[in-house]
C-alpha cells in the first residue's frame, strides 16, 4: 500500500483510468434510482444480445431498507458501486481484474487475495451467473460474475461483471472504521458530502414516505411499461430504453414501500414477480432489436 492511501475520489479516478486503458466506455452514473449497479441498463440490457460491450461506471445504489440515519458506521441507504462489464468476457479477465487491484495499491504479494465460490443471482431481473466473491485479507471486495442469464434469457456471448463496493473498499484502504470519516478528497470527508443525505433520506424512506402514493406510482409505472413497449420510434423501433426506465422506477418504488414495512411477507414474492415480468418483457424486446441472441 502506498504511504498515503487513496482518497475515495482518487480511488474512483484510478479505477476509471485503469479501465479506460482497457478500452472501457467510462459512463456517468445512470440518472434513475437503482438498487444496484447491475440494474443500470448499461449492464442489464447491454449484457444481452450479440454485440460486444465494454463499460465502467460508478453507480450510486439506493437501498432504502438499509437506512440508518447516518448513525451506523458502515450501513448506508445509498452506497456507491464500481461496475465493470466486458462482453464477451476476455479470457484474461481475472488478470485484468488483478491488475486493477494493483492499480489501486493492493499488492497481491502482501495481501491475501482469494476467489471464493459465490453464485450471484438477482431474482427481480431474472438474472444469474457463476463466479466468486473476491476476498482481500478476509474481506469481500468484489463480486465477480460470469452472467449466464438476464431477464430469463441466455447471455451469449457471456458478459463478465465486476462489482466493487467502493465505501467498503475505501474503509479498508484508508484503515478507518466509519464511512463518515473517509477522506473523500484532501479537503472533504465523506460525512461532509453525504451525511445529511443519509439522515434525511433515512427519515423519509423509513417514516415519512406515503405508502398509498408510492403504491399508486408503482401501479402507474407497471401499466406504462407495456404501453411504452407497444409504441414506436421514428425508425419503427420499439421504445425499450424508456420502457426499462419505468421498470427501474417501479423497482425503486417497491424498495421504498418495503423499507416502510408496507409489504407483507406473502406479498413480497408477488411484487418481485411483477417486476421480473416487466424486466423480461424489456429484455425480450431488447434482444430482438439487437438481432437476437448469438
Amino acid at each position, binding site marked *: 500500500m502506498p504511504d498515503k492511501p487513496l482518497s475515495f475520489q482518487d480511488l474512483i479516478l484510478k479505477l476509471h483510468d485503469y479501465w479506460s486503458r482497457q478500452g472501457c466506455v467510462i459512463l456517468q452514473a445512470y440518472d434513475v434510482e437503482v438498487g444496484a449497479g447491475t440494474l443500470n441498463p448499461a449492464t442489464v440490457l447491454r449484457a444481452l444480445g450479440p454485440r460486444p460491450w465494454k463499460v465502467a461506471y460508478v453507480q450510486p445504489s439506493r437501498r432504502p431498507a438499509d437506512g440508518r440515519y447516518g448513525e451506523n458506521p458502515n450501513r448506508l441507504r445509498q452506497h456507491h458501486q464500481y461496475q465493470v462489464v466486458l462482453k*464477451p*468476457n476476455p*479470457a484474461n479477465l481475472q488478470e485484468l481484474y488483478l491488475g486493477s487491484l494493483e492499480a489501486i495499491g493492493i499488492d497481491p*504479494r502482501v495481501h491475501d487475495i*482469494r476467489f471464493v*465460490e459465490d453464485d450471484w443471482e438477482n431474482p427481480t431481473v431474472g438474472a444469474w451467473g*457463476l463466479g466468486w466473491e473476491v476476498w*482481500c485479507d478476509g474481506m469481500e471486495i468484489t463480486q465477480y460474475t*460470469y452472467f449466464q442469464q438476464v431477464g430469463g434469457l441466455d447471455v451469449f456471448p457471456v458478459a463478465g461483471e465486476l462489482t466493487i463496493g467502493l465505501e467498503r473498499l475505501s474503509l479498508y484502504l484508508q484503515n478507518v472504521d466509519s464511512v463518515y470519516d473517509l477522506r473523500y478528497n484532501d479537503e472533504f470527508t465523506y460525512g461532509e458530502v453525504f451525511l445529511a443525505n443519509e439522515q434525511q433520506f433515512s427519515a423519509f424512506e423509513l417514516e415519512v414516505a406515503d405508502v398509498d402514493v408510492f403504491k399508486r406510482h408503482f401501479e402507474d409505472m407497471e401499466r406504462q411499461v407495456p404501453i411504452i413497449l407497444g409504441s414506436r420510434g421514428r425508425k419503427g423501433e420499439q421504445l425499450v430504453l424508456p420502457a426499462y426506465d419505468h421498470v427501474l422506477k417501479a423497482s425503486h418504488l417497491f424498495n421504498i414501500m418495503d423499507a416502510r414495512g408496507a409489504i407483507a411477507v406473502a406479498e413480497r414474492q408477488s411484487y418481485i414477480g411483477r417486476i421480473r415480468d416487466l424486466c423480461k418483457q424489456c429484455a425480450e424486446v431488447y434482444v430482438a432489436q439487437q438481432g437476437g441472441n*448469438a
Partner: protein
Amino acid sequence: MPQLLLELFSEEIPARMQAQAARDLERMAREKLAAEGLLPGALTAFAGPRRLTLVAEGLAAAQAERHEERKGPRVGSPDQAIEGFLRSTGLTRDQLTERDGLYFAHIHKAGRPTADIVGEMVDAIVRNFPWPKSMVSGVSKLRWVRPLQRILCVFDGEVVPFTIDGHVSGDLTEGHRFMGTGQAFRVRNFDDYADGLARNFVVLDPHERRERIMDAARTLCFARNFELVEDDGLLDEVAGLAEWPTPVMGDMDPAFLDLPPEVIRTSMRVHQRFFAVRDPTTGFLVPHFITVANIEATDGGKTIATGNARVLSARLSDARFFWTEDQRVRLEDRLEKLKGVTFHARLGTMYQRVERITKLAGELAAFTGADRAKAEQAARLCKADLGTGMVGEFPELQGVMGAYYADKEGFDPEIVDAIRSHYRPQGPSDEVPALAVGATVALADKLDTLVSFFAIDEKPTGSRDPFALRRAALGVIRILQQTRARLPLKQFASDDLIAFFADRLKVILRDQGQRHDLVDAVFALGDDDIVRIVAKVSALADFLGTEDGANLLAGYKRAVNILKAEEKKGALPVGDPIASAPGEEGALTAAVGRMEAALDKALDKEDYAAAMTALAALRAPVDAFFDKVLVNSDVPAERDNRLRLLAKVRDAMGRVADFGQVTG
C-alpha cells in the same frame, strides 16, 4: 511403460466440488481406458483450486493387435451373399477359409496408438464432466465449472495433439498465481510436473495441503501454548481455497470473549473460514484465530493478520448487536412471530408445530419419566429462537441460542438443556440428549416431524428424503434405546409409520451386527415397544446361536411344513392334544405344557433370556418326537392328536417370535 499426464487448468474451482471432481476424473479415465483394452498400472487424480490433474502409469504405447474370426455364408451360397460378406470384411475371396461347409474371414486389427485414444478420452471427459453446476464463458459454448484456461496432455514424453473447442493441447502449465515466476513452463512427465509446481509454490495433492495446514497451524498454536480447535470440514474447505496454504495467526479483540464461544466459532468459520484457538488447560477460547492464506507474504503475514482481524471485529460487532438486541425480547414473546413462519405449505406454521410438539411432549413425559410441566415449557420455547437475529444470521445455532437466552431469563437448567439439545441426535455420531426433559422434547420434535409428513404422504423414497425423516426415525429409536422409555408407538404412529420404524430399526441392528430377519420375526408379533423389541431380538439371536436353538428352529420348520401340507388336504383339527398320549408324543405334550407355564412367567417379567431357556427345553422332546413318531398315522384319531400337538408347539413358540420369518 509410458506415462500419461493430463492437467485441466482453469479459474478457481469451488472448494466443495474438488474432491468429487478428482473422483469423477479418475473414474471417467478408467472407464474409457478399460473400454479400449488399456489397463494402466496406476491411475491417480488430484484436484486443487485451479487444476484437475490425472496421471496414468504403465500404459501400453498402443492397443494390442486384435484378431477376429467372423462366420460367413455357406460354401456354395449365391455370389451376391458371398460378395456382401467380402465387402463387409474388406477381404478377397482367396483370403477366406472354409470349415464345416462355411466361409470364415480372419480379420487382423492393428491396435490403435494409445495417444489417439487419449485424445478421444480427454475430449469426452471435458465435454461430459459431471460438475454440479457449470457455465459458459466468452464466445465459447464449452461448459466447465469456471472458465477452462489450458489443457496439458503429455503421453510418453510427447504432447498428445488435439483441440477442444479452441483449446489446443500442449505441455505447458503454470505455478502459483502470485508467488510463482508468472511464466508458464514446459513439462514432459509427472516428475517434471510435480517438481515444477513445487518450485512454483503449488501443493498438488489435497492431502498434502491439509497436512501442511495442520502442521503449520499446530506449530503456531504450540509456540504460544495454545491449542487449535480442529474442524475437519473447515480444513477440507480451506485446503481447496489455496494452492500454497499458509496459516497465519491473528489477534481478536479480547472484549468479544464475553460472547458465547459457539457464536465466536461459528462467525469465524462461516464468515471468515478461520480456525478458533483455545487454552489447552481450561478449554476456553483465547482471543486469536488462524486464517489460511494463499501466500507467504513478503511482510511475514502482518498485513494479512491485521486485515483479517479488522474484518473479524466487524463480524463480531454484528454478532454482539444480535446478542444484546435478542435479549431485549423474552422467548415467550417471540412465539407470536412464529405464526408468520411457514413450517411447510401443507403443515401450517411453525407456531402450530410448536403447539403440537408441546402437547406431544406432555403426553410423552409419562413414558420418559420427565417432569411433565418442564417438558411442556421447554417444548413451548424450543423453537422461539428461530425469530432471533442471531439464528437468522447463523441458522446452525438454533437451539444453542435459545438455551443461552432461556438461561439469561432464569429458566430451570433442565429446560435450558432441553432447548439446547432437542435437535439431537443429528446424525449417527451425535449424542442423544442426556437429561429426561431434553430427551422428551427431542422425541416430541422428531415424532411430530414423522407423523406430520407421513400424514401428507411425504415419505422418503429411494435416495430422496428431503425432510430427513430417516434421520428423525433413527433419532427416535436411539432416544428410546438410551432412555429405556417404554413407549407404545402405536398410540402415536400410523401403521405405515410403524413399518418405517421397523425398517430403520433393522438398519440400526444390522449395523450392530444383528440379523435383519430376526427383527422381522419379532416385529411380526405386532409389538410396538422398541426397548422390548430390541431385547427380544438380542435374546433370540443368542438362542439361535446355540445348538438347541438351531435344532429347535429346524424342528419348528418341520412342524410348520407338515401342518401346511395337511392343511391343503382339509381343515386342521382344532383343540388341545390329549394329555394321555403314550411315548414321545405324551412326553412332548407334557413338555409343551411346562414350557408354556415357564414362558408365561418369563414374558410377564420381560425376561427374554428365560423365555429362550423355556424354549430350549423343547428341543429334546421335539427331536425325539420326530425321530420316533409318525404324524401321518393311519388311525385318524392319532393323526389328529399329533397335528394338534404340532400346532400347539408352533403357537407356543410363536408367542416369542414368528420363527417362520427366520432364515436358515
